[in-house]
């Protein structure tokens, strides 16, 4: 396998490449790659460790006798607790699915006119969105809290879902991607008598599928990992990530279960990325900051 890889490296398919430098760069990549991977491999191993292996000294990285006890314990523990595990999962799925699908729809609907037409205010609006890419949400966190409390959304899922629908990066990437759709296609549809909404829904949207998946992979992990922040207080509205935090704080007796939850939380976004990788790269190729 390694020899094969190296042979491919050596193949003179590219100009101006020396084997030595390629080899050195490959070593650097492998070194840093394993550094990046270590904690993730550890998380996988930990989730399958029996309790006695979690606490041996000196600590071991890899699992010796893998067991699925941690997962069965998790189900048992959460089944007995005041709020069942299924409730946390439902809450998390509700927030994630509505937040992600809604974001893709709203951002696409806003991106279409901005990318294809010029009208009063279109440039200004897009500049404001680009400007807002340059600062993080922490800047707006305090007034946001006040806005949400005035709206009466404290302790509702809306406090998390609604603000996430207008994530600026999504609109930005979607607009850049939609600019590639040929104008002739839209003109043809217009001549055939299609309304703007029809054009958007049946012509533009099917053509920007890679961009959807990109928005999905950016939005999904953020919502999937939310713990409700400062907005949600009721136990039965809390999310899976919050439950994980509680389990980890539960201490030594819960270490195995904590490792199991960590793995579940991690696997979902990574799997999504594996599925959508090529589409994501395709969308990012268009992501320029244009003046």
């Amino acid at each position, binding site marked *: 396998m390694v020899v094969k*890889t190296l042979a491919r*490296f050596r193949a003179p398919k*590219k*100009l*101006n490449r020396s084997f030595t430098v*390629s080899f050195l*760069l490959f070593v650097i990549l492998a070194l*840093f*790659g394993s550094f*990046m991977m270590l*904690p*993730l491999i*550890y998380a996988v191993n930990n989730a399958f460790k029996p309790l006695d292996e979690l606490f041996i*000294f*000196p*600590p071991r*990285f890899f699992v010796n006798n893998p067991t699925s006890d941690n997962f069965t314990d998790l189900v048992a523990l959460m089944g007995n607790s005041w709020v069942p595990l299924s409730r946390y999962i439902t809450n998390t799925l509700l927030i994630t699915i509505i937040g992600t699908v809604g974001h893709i729809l*709203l951002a696409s*609907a*806003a991106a279409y*006119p901005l990318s294809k*037409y010029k*009208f*009063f205010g279109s440039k200004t609006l897009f500049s404001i*969105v680009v400007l*807002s*890419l*340059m*600062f*993080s949400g*922490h*800047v*707006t*966190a*305090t*007034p*946001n*809290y*006040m*806005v949400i409390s005035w709206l009466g959304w404290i302790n509702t899922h809306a406090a998390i879902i609604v603000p996430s*629908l*207008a994530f600026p990066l999504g*609109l930005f990437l979607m607009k850049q991607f939609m600019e590639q759709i040929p104008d002739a296609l839209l003109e043809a549809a217009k001549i055939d008598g299609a309304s*703007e*909404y029809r054009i958007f829904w049946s012509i533009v949207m099917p053509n920007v599928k890679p961009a959807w998946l990109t928005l999905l*992979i950016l939005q999904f992990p953020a919502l*999937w990992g939310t713990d409700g922040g400062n907005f949600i207080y009721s136990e039965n509205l809390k999310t899976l*990530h919050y439950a994980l935090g509680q389990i*980890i704080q539960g201490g030594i007796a819960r270490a195995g279960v904590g490792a199991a939850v*960590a793995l579940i*939380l991690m696997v979902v*976004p990574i799997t999504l*990325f594996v599925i959508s*990788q090529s589409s994501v*790269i*395709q969308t*990012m*190729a268009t*992501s320029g*900051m244009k003046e």
Partner: protein
Amino acid sequence: MQVGTTNQTVESSIQTMKESRWTKAMKEFKKNKHYYFMMSPYMIIFFTFTVIPVVFSLVLSFFYFNMLEFPRFIGWQNYSRLFLNDDVFMIALKNTFLFAIITGPVSYIACFIFAWIINELSPKIRAFMTLVFYAPSISGNVFFIWLIIFSGDSYGYLNGFLMKVGIILEPIQWLADEKYILAIVMIVQLWLSLGTSFLAFIAGLQTIDQSLVEAAAMDGIKNRWQELWFITLPSMRPQLMFGAVMQITASFAVAEVSIALAGFPSVNYAAHTVVTHLMDYGTIRFEMGYASTIATVLFGMMIGTNIITQKLLRKIGE
């Protein structure tokens, strides 16, 4: 008399001009009403939760406001308190600048270098390596694993390893010792930082026109470094700009990692950043006016740095 008539005509012509401009605008609006309608859901939410809060924050930074009493105007007092009387803010500012100067550029360059090496691999291995480098930034809160690695007792992986090798005899309290905290938070932040810009770079590298590379080889480009400087970087300028914005913003916003690893507040504020200071006043002490001042200063720093960096990046390959 004559003057009066002229005045009247001028007035009436102004009237018609005004009216025609108004009708023109209305016509324009009617013509484009579908576009406004399609944008409205996104824009209403965007303005409510992003634009209005920023403006609100700017205004509130001149007030004393604790959520209970009516806001009281105090002018520049919050700003003078922040810069002259708040020692903790100075620590936070120093740490944030360290993050911006160290982790910002390092992660930006790392994103590019790794993307650049990965691009030379065959498609299947390229996809795998992309996943390896991108996974930490999407795997949510797996960074709690670093807590176990840097745990202060001999069960901590790093302590266990160093003691086994014989470098240290006593376990080190990595996350409770001012000397180490900031460096550890930086390492973890770097580990997490190969995100959106990394993907943008990979994508940018794949769209480079190969005929351009071949033509350049004919014209005397001798090695990969020249190719990098004269062809790759200039062709990727849009993605480089985009990546810079993402990395700078992230390096100014370090908070979650600091809180998760070093606690809140960290020992002697060793890992305190502007954002954790903002959280302290905004969500714990409820001094909303003062918190808004911190947010405004942070906002200015982020936008300012981004604009300067974009100007510098525009010079690449020129």
